[in-house]
């Protein structure tokens, strides 16, 4: 491959980054509509506890994170759906419990903190073939699940009650979305790290909602912005020696800012729609 992707480590980074860059905004499109933009962050902290547990127990930390994330995401959804806690309260519970559990587990195993550092901030330039295989597998699962359930998920995020009457298995759809969120977090962990994990699910969607004109268009634009951010972020990291994960996220944020400025000028910023609504529009 041409420079700057001439080295194997850059090619692995590109492969892992592209899967996450394309897939994370697809999931994020639904999460943003459900006003659960930050669930990736909450689950990311659970992933961190999973990594710490994996290191402590001597199993591959990514597997431990995967188990912890799936269980955590299902628990958040269970609390939300059961009405025992609002979505954001359920999220806060796992956000703090996750990070606290990670700190306690790190304290139990001396010397673990150095290993944890790479999971905290990501280490896309050191991903292995094994990592890429797992991330690629997760990407396939996400795409296949969305191909099968995407329309039912769209019906649910538009109006959950109507979807239930229309025969959508709402509980199964919500649980599937929770699991997809969890595995996306695990795939994104080596790319951008636990602290920025939700960024690739949310920031490209923010830009895509301005650029796209439909749910389908938003998903397409989200993936395009995600992939663009990964490529430019990796190139910038190679050229200037910047932290790659954070640079990718900054790129996504920059695209969002530009789209908001341009879209705002064209009167297409979502916030303007909200302002317009108060003038005799829908309640």
């Amino acid at each position, binding site marked *: 491959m041409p420079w700057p992707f001439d080295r194997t480590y850059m090619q692995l980074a590109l492969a892992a980054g592209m899967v996450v860059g394309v897939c994370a905004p697809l999931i994020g499109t639904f999460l943003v509509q459900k006003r659960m933009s930050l669930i990736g962050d909450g689950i990311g902290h659970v992933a961190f506890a999973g990594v710490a547990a994996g290191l402590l127990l001597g199993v591959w930390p990514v597997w431990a994170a995967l188990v912890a994330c799936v269980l955590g995401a299902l628990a958040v959804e269970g609390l939300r759906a059961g009405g025992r806690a609002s979505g954001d309260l359920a999220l806060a519970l796992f956000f703090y419990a996750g990070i606290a559990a990670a700190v306690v587990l790190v304290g139990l195993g001396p010397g673990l903190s150095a290993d944890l550092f790479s999971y905290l901030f990501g280490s896309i330039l050191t991903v292995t073939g094994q990592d890429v295989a797992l991330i690629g597998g997760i990407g396939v699962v996400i795409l296949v699940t969305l191909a099968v359930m995407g329309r039912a998920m769209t019906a649910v995020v*538009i109006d959950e009650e109507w979807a239930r009457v229309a025969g959508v298995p709402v509980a199964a759809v919500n649980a599937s979305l929770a699991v997809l969120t969890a595995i996306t977090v695990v795939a994104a962990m080596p790319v951008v790290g636990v602290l920025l994990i939700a960024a690739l699910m949310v920031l490209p969607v923010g830009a895509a909602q301005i650029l796209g004109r439909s749910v389908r268009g*938003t998903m397409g634009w989200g993936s395009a912005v995600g992939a663009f951010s990964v490529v430019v972020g990796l190139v910038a990291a190679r050229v200037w020696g910047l932290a790659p994960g954070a640079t990718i996220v900054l790129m996504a944020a920059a695209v969002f800012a530009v789209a908001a400025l341009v879209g705002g000028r064209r009167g297409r910023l979502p916030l303007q729609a909200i302002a317009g609504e108060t003038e005799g529009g829908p309640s």
Partner: protein
Amino acid sequence: MSVTGGTAVATDPLAEVEGIAFAYDSEPILDGVTLSIRSGEFVALVGPNGSGKSTLLKVMLGLLEPLSGRVRLFGVDPGRFRDRGRLGYVPQRPALGHDLPATVEEVVTMGRLSARGWHTRLSPADREEVEHALETVGLAALAQRRVRELSAGQQQRVFIARALASRPSLLVLDEPIAGVDAESQRRFRDSLTHLVHQHQAAVLLVSHELGVVAEEIDRIVVLRRRVLFDGPPDELVRTGVSLGIHQEDLPLWLEGLR
């Protein structure tokens, strides 16, 4: 118990509740409510605020479990009812996400999918049904617009088109004309009468105001925890209540029942 309207035919009820009781915590909301809807009937369910109208609707649709009584949708328990395309539902105007990018066409397509199955690839005939539903409510020209960008009345028509897209045998609407402009109300009335007359569908309209729809109703059911009246509008009018388009009598009379 029911008095059927002129266009109704004697068939098995499409929806039926019998002796329904429901309570939130210990506060009774419904007590011994019995009601059935048959093909070709246009039924209005009215009552003052807090009379249990929406609760009855949710029980009827299987969204809430009654404390006692029997519920049947197309002859089966709502939990076992599978042929969802036969049921069209227009909920009270849903709170759309501030950033919802869905277009009018995408939302209405959801209605078609409820009839065809969520994993099915839509055929050109399905696309035509979606288009037809949009034309019926007068929104074909706005198919590619985002729902969020439309007025309240237009949004309500989108949700009605979503319900029509499955060609339902029973259309259930919860407060569909509250706060909707006169033009949208007329369009709405025409869509419903088209459905009843052309497709022999039944309509159950839950509302505390009837507006322009009043003249099309076959049967009116007045609810306040129990069914206070179930019969043709003329009979209710003979008791001194006006269902007039411009008069405020019905809402005032209903509030007097509280």
